[in-house]
C-alpha cells in the first residue's frame, strides 16, 4: 500500500524558460496618438459638448427664424459682447456681486456665532436644530414680500433674503462638521490648554473644514440663485439694477438676445465661483491636508 501512496498535489518537474529580451518585443510603452490623448482629457470632452450645444442652438434658432423668442447663438454672443463693451453688464454684475458679498458674509458670521453657541451649550444646540428645521425648507425668495414690507425697496431687502438663504445651509453643515470632530482631536486640543473661542478657532473650525466648505458651497449656490430671482422680482435698488434686473429690463424691451446674454453671464459667474474659486480653496486646504480625496 505504501508503494502506491501518491502525494497530493503531485510533485511536478521543475521548469525554466528563456525570456525574450524586452528590446526584441518592439515598443513596450507606446505613446498614445494625439486623438487618443485628447479623448482622455475631460476638459476637451466637455468643451466638445459645449461646441455641440452651441451648434445645435445656432441651427435650431436659424431654422426657427424668430429672434424675438429664440435668438441665434451668434446674436447672443454679439449681444453679450455689446453688453460687456458698453459697460452695462459689468456694472450690473458688480451691483449684484456687491449685494451678494455683503449678504453672504453677514450670513456666515451669524451662522458661525449660532453654531459656536450651539456647540458650547445645550440650549444653543436645541435652538439651532429647531431653527434650521423650521427655516431650511423655506425658500428664501418666499420671504421677499415680507422683506420688502420691512426694509422697503432696496438693497437691505435683498441682503435680508440672501442672509436667510446662506445662514441655515451653512449653520447646518458647520454644526454637523463640529459634531464629527473626533474625540481624540478634542482631547488633544484641550491638553494644549485651548478653551472657549480659542478651542473653536484652533481645533473645531479647521477640523470641521471639509463640512464647512461644503456648507459654504451650498450657501453660495443658494445665495446666487436667490439673488438673481429676487432682482428679477423687483429689480432696481436705489436706482441701480443688478444682473436680474438687466434680464428683466431686456425682456420688457423684447431684446431677447440680451436676455440670453444675461443668462449666460449668470451661468458663467456661477460656474466660475463653483468650479474655479471653490476648487482652488479645496486644493489649498482640505485636499492638501488629506482630509478629502480628489
Amino acid at each position: 500500500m505504501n508503494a502506491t501512496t501518491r502525494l497530493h498535489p503531485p510533485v511536478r518537474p521543475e521548469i525554466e524558460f528563456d525570456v525574450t529580451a524586452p528590446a526584441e518585443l518592439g515598443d513596450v510603452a507606446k505613446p498614445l496618438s494625439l486623438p487618443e490623448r485628447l479623448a482622455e482629457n475631460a476638459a476637451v470632452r466637455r468643451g466638445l459638448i459645449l461646441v455641440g450645444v452651441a451648434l445645435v442652438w445656432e441651427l435650431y434658432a436659424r431654422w426657427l427664424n424668430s429672434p424675438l423668442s429664440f435668438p441665434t447663438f451668434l446674436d447672443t454672443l454679439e449681444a453679450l459682447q455689446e453688453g460687456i463693451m458698453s459697460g452695462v453688464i459689468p456694472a450690473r454684475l458688480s451691483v449684484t456681486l456687491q449685494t451678494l458679498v455683503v449678504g453672504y458674509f453677514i450670513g456666515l458670521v451669524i451662522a458661525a456665532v449660532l453654531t459656536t453657541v450651539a456647540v458650547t451649550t445645550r440650549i444653543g444646540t436645541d435652538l439651532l436644530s429647531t431653527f434650521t428645521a423650521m427655516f431650511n425648507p423655506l425658500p428664501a425668495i418666499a420671504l421677499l414680500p415680507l422683506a420688502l414690507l420691512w426694509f422697503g425697496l432696496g438693497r437691505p431687502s435683498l441682503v435680508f433674503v440672501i442672509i436667510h438663504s446662506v445662514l441655515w445651509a451653512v449653520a447646518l453643515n458647520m454644526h454637523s462638521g463640529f459634531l464629527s470632530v473626533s474625540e481624540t482631536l478634542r482631547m488633544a486640543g484641550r491638553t494644549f490648554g485651548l478653551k472657549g473661542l480659542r478651542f473653536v478657532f484652533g481645533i473645531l473650525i479647521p477640523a470641521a473644514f471639509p463640512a464647512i466648505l461644503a456648507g459654504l458651497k451650498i450657501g453660495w449656490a443658494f445665495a446666487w440663485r436667490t439673488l438673481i430671482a429676487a432682482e428679477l422680482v423687483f429689480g432696481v435698488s436705489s436706482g441701480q439694477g443688478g444682473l436680474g434686473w438687466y434680464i428683466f429690463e431686456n425682456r420688457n424691451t423684447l431684446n431677447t438676445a440680451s436676455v440670453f446674454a444675461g443668462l449666460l453671464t449668470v451661468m458663467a459667474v456661477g460656474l466660475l465661483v463653483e468650479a474655479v474659486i471653490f476648487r482652488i480653496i479645496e486644493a489649498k486646504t482640505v485636499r492638501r491636508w488629506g482630509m478629502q480625496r480628489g
Partner: protein
Amino acid sequence: MSQVMERAAVIDATPDVPLVRVEGVTLQYKTPEHLVTATYRVSFDIHKQDRLVLLGPSGCGKSTLLKAIAGFLDPVEGRITLKDKVVEGPGPDRMMVFQEFDQLLPWKTVSANVAYPMLINGVGRDEAMARALDALAKVNLTKFVDAYPHMLSGGMKQRVAIARAMAMKPDVLLMDEPYAALDALTRRKMQEELLQLWDDVGFTLVFVTHSIEEAVVVGSRVVVLSPHPGQVRAELNCHDLDFKQRDSVEFGRLTARISHMLFDGQTIAH
C-alpha cells in the same frame, strides 16, 4: 501594596517627594444606561523620572485613570495632585499621547504640529520652532518636518505625537496605549526608541498598556490593576529589565507573576 522594595531606584537625584500623588481615587462615568465605576480607591505615587506603567486587562479603568490624571475627569472620591496642587482640567503641564493616529492636526505640517502647543502657551515663534525641530530630530523625523500628517505611517504619526508632547517639556508625559495600533515590529522599535529618549531626556512618564511584556520593557515601575472596577493589585519594580533581559529568568519570572495576578483562577476572557 505591601511589596518589599528590595531594589531601590537607580536613577540619581530622585527627590523623595512624589511629583504626582493619586490618593484613594474612585472614578465613575456615565453611559446612557449605567453609572460605571471604573476604578475604586486607587492610590499610587509618581516620582520624577519614573516610567510608571498602568497595567491591567480591558475594562480595569486604566485609561480612565490616565484621563483623570490628564484632568479630563474628576474623581468622585479621593484626589490627584501634581506638585501638591489638585489637578483641575487638562493642561500643557500634562501632555498626552493617545492611541489613535488622528491626534495630529491634519491641517498643520509636522513641525507646525509640534510647535503649536508651545505657541498657544506663549513660547516665542523662533524658540517654539527650534524646540520643535529639536524634538523631531530626537524621534528621527527630521526629513519629514514639512510633511502633512496624512503622508506619514502610523508609527511616524505616533513619533510626531511624542515629539509634540516632549517639546512642551511637561511635568508628566501621559501615554495611553500609544503603540497598541501598530504592527509588532514597529511597536518593538518604538519601545526601544522611547527608552533611548528617556535615557537622553529623563522625562517622567505614565504609560498605559494591556501588554505585560510591554509594561516590563517600558516601565521602571508597574502598577497592576485588577479587573472591573480597577483596584491596585500590586506595584512592582522592573527598572532593571528591558529588551536585553527579555529572555532572562527574572524577566520570565516577573511576567509570570503579573500574569498570575491578572488571571489567577479565571479563564482569560478577551
